[in-house]
């Protein structure tokens, strides 16, 4: 009897899973013993890490997008029809267009989204680069910037945990090249008592900030933004004036997760090793959608997807589980417009970033293109 794998979400994690299964289960797809269906929210696939480069004019918008049907293996039944209700008891998903999809196995890959509207004044008073519209507006603001106070404000939770540091270093280089660094005062705020969640990265960043003249304030969790007075207040009681506010807004998962009772804030309770939704043997969760306490990053999505491919193929072909996720995360860290480093860790190996180099920066630039091979399941 034919089996159906339903993938909810067409971002990186869902796309890698779909393509990876196609590569391993060609015979079953040909015979009709398996079908794979994906429910996405858009005809296009966006390379999200590229958004960091848009405000600085270092990537063109068109470079961020591909037609999702071309990124996906042709054997995937792809619908741009977002899930509206997910019923894990009945093994079915109802979409916004009113279709109902049954499944034998489901992969939840609904991702995360920025929620500036959850902090009073942030949407009106802040700039960001975590979506295309925000990155465009920030590009305009930077083009018009002639000097003054810039605040880079980081909120929890957020995806791509090194991006806030990267934007600070890149902004320094950008303003310096334009001859505006001496007219600017850059302050970076972070929710906990150091400059980054990863302790070794924080220890490395602190003297770098001090060397470059980037100010910082830790234990800063945004309570409100006053767009008229141009001030930002923290829950901890401090207030900073700004001329340009670059915020990393707090994130939440997809609304459909919350609405379907699968997890508060859109984060699905997930087994840290098997990636099963807690309580479901036939539902896997990958990428930002999990509530696993690790970085919400593209690499996390990629490594989780690889494990999920092996497990789904193994379950379909051999009725057994293949392997567990070890918590692996890998992040490039741009340390300016011409240098970079990287950091990797898993559940048992702590991070240990190496010294920045031009070579690693170039590799990151190369990965900005190689990403499409990852999404296709080739890298």
């Amino acid at each position, binding site marked *: 009897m034919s089996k159906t794998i339903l993938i909810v979400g067409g971002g990186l994690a869902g796309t890698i899973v779909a393509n990876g299964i196609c590569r391993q289960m060609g015979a079953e797809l040909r015979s009709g013993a398996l079908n794979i269906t994906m429910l996405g929210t858009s005809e296009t696939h966006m390379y999200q890490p590229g958004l960091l480069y848009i405000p600085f004019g270092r990537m063109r918008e068109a470079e961020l997008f591909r037609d999702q049907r071309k990124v996906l293996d042709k054997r995937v039944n792809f619908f741009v029809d977002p899930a509206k209700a997910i019923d894990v008891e009945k093994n079915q998903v109802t979409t916004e267009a009113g279709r109902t999809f049954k499944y034998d196995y489901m992969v939840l890959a609904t991702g995360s989204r920025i929620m500036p509207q959850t902090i009073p004044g942030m949407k009106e008073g802040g700039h960001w680069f975590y979506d295309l519209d925000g990155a465009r507006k920030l590009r305009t603001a930077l083009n018009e910037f002639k000097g003054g106070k810039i605040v880079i404000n980081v909120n929890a939770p957020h995806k791509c945990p090194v991006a806030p540091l990267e934007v600070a270093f890149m902004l320094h280089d950008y303003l310096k090249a334009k001859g505006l660094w001496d007219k600017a005062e850059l302050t970076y705020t972070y929710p906990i008592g150091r400059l980054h969640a990863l302790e070794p990265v924080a220890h490395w960043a602190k003297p770098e900030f001090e060397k470059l003249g980037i100010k910082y304030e830790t234990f800063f969790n945004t309570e409100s933004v006053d767009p008229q007075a141009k001030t930002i207040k923290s829950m901890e009681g401090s207030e900073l004036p700004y001329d340009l506010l670059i915020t990393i807004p707090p994130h939440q998962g997809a609304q459909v997760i919350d609405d379907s009772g699968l997890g508060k*804030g859109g984060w699905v309770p997930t087994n840290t090793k098997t990636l099963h939704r807690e309580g479901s043997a036939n539902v896997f969760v990958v990428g930002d959608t999990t509530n696993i306490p690790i970085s919400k990053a593209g690499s996390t999505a990629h490594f989780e997807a690889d494990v999920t491919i092996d497990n789904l193929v193994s379950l379909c072909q051999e009725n057994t589980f293949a392997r567990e996720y070890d918590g692996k995360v890998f992040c490039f860290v741009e340390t300016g417009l011409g240098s970079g480093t990287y950091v990797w860790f898993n559940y048992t190996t702590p*991070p240990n970033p190496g010294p920045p180099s031009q070579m690693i920066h170039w590799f990151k630039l190369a990965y900005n293109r190689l990403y499409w091979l990852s999404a296709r399941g080739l890298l």
Partner: protein
Amino acid sequence: MAERQKIDARGAFCPGPLMELIAALKLASIGDEVDVWSSDKGSASDIPAWCAKVGHSVVEASEHDGYWSVVVRKAK
């Protein structure tokens, strides 16, 4: 009715126990409790220090076999 949520952040290098707590409290209602498990000894002092700054209550903090548990009640 107030809820108690557990976050098992043992071995979590990034974003770490305090960031997980901050994120969870944003979604919690006043009176809800979050029990954070951390294998990082620093959490036993960092979490209460942050709660004191912001005004949340530390209900209990205890050391177990290789990890620390800190229960925080959302106060505002």
